[in-house]
């Protein structure tokens, strides 16, 4: 009886802890949702400081989309080539070269392109935003902003949020174009599929719905990355260790949310 009682107590403890952790995750998720709402509307509510916010937004776009865009160009070329190298070997054997375009549309435009660009932005800017805002928070700069009567979420968060969104949309377009060029170069060099045929196949396969899904995914991924990074930046309060911990947490949360959203949107597309 005594042993049974102890087992029940231990089970209770385990369940309690699991429930507590689950509750903490749900609470965190709701906090992130609240932050998303605040950032989305922040640009339109508050004093008319368009110039100031626009300057910060331009800085963010430059940092995210322009400074290291050549890396994305290079990796997207590789992506296009990889798609073609695996596909053409089989398609040429089956006389199915016209499916090259369809393959590129499905993989690059609709599925991998948005995720590829999102990963680039997550690595390039997501962590940087968390560290920057986290350090400002720890150095009491957020407090100074509050004392100046400036909403720190609006001044620091909103330009970064929209900057990341605009940047990711631009980078997605760049990624798709370079992947197509990469695919074409490889297709011509190794499978002797020439430009006219390649382009015709791609244009025939491309539909508005593919582009819409690509852009929708990109926009949502960008907003997720920005919201999570900004949220974890503002969550730093005590010391520098917290900044490191929150940066890694922000990356993991972004990955999880991007994955979940991608599955939901893809499933919605096929339904």
């Amino acid at each position, binding site marked *: 009886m005594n042993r049974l009682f102890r087992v029940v107590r231990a089970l209770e403890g385990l369940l309690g802890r699991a429930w507590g952790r689950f509750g903490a995750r749900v609470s965190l998720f709701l906090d992130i949702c609240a932050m998303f709402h605040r950032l989305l509307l922040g640009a339109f509510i508050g004093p008319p400081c368009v*110039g*100031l916010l626009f300057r910060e937004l331009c800085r963010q776009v430059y940092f995210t989309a322009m400074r290291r865009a050549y890396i994305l160009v290079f990796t997207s070329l590789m992506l296009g080539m990889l798609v073609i190298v695996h596909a053409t070997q089989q398609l040429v054997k089956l006389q199915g070269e016209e499916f090259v375009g369809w393959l590129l549309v499905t993989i690059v435009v609709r599925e991998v392109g948005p995720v590829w660009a999102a990963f680039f932005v997550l690595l390039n800017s997501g962590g940087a935003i968390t560290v920057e805002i986290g350090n400002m928070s720890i150095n009491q700069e957020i*407090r100074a*902003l509050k*004392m100046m009567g400036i909403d720190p979420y609006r*001044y620091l968060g909103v330009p970064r949020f929209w900057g990341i969104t605009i940047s990711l949309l631009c980078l997605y377009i760049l990624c798709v174009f370079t992947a197509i060029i990469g695919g074409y170069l490889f297709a011509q060099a190794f499978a002797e599929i020439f430009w006219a045929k390649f382009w015709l196949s791609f244009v025939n396969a491309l539909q508005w719905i593919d582009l819409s899904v690509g852009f929708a995914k990109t926009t949502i991924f960008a907003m997720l990355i920005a919201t999570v990074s900004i949220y974890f930046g503002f969550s730093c309060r005590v010391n520098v260790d917290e900044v490191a911990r929150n940066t890694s947490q922000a990356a993991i949360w972004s990955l999880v949310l991007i994955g979940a959203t991608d599955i939901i949107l893809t499933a919605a597309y096929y339904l």
Partner: protein
Amino acid sequence: MLHHALNLDMVTLPRDSAWPGPLSLAVAFNEVVLIEGAGLAESLPLLDVAATLASPASGHVRHWGRDAALRRREKLYRLRRRIAYISPRQVLLHLITLGENIALGPCYYQGCSEAEALAPHADLLELLGLNTHLTQYPPQVSAAIYARAVWARELVKGPELILAVIEGDLATTAGAARLAHVLRDHLARNGAAALLLGESLEAFYPLGHRLFRLEAGQLRKQTILEHRARPLTAYLPLI
């Protein structure tokens, strides 16, 4: 209560502070209250609460008759625009220049450029000796200039209530004299209530209306010698 810029009503500060009992203190419009004998440990918890950056453990903090705790976020930001809070813990944003730091508030609220924001305050910047440092970044300047830039940033807001701790470089004879001059000029032009705390505030006696001395967590009223023969007309705005 409406004629008070700041009213601390039976306020208990957070437990770890150096104020053991509930505190009641009112600062009227255009009144300058000095509290001597207050070091950083005593000043910061009190001013954090007075500036609405921290909540009191109990009691009410009222600004111009309204309880700060009842205000919504956006209104709280607007309230802070009317309050200048200067302490060694107040920092400048390190990624922008001193000029941008000082002009940030007006730029945010009025949507103007940095030059437009600073132009009406050229005299203040001149008095604080900041004109040659406006293009420098905060980590590049000395502690004295940094502290003066914090004063400039807060005074540029055109505050109606000034909460300040006089400490560090600004507590030296030269620093305090310069600051007293700046404050006198600001109060004469714009008029504001002020609550100044520090170990010694002798340089500010000519500005002060009331002087307290902090002893064992209690405020004891003192007479400002310079004010013995003060005419009653000086108190008319308080009636």
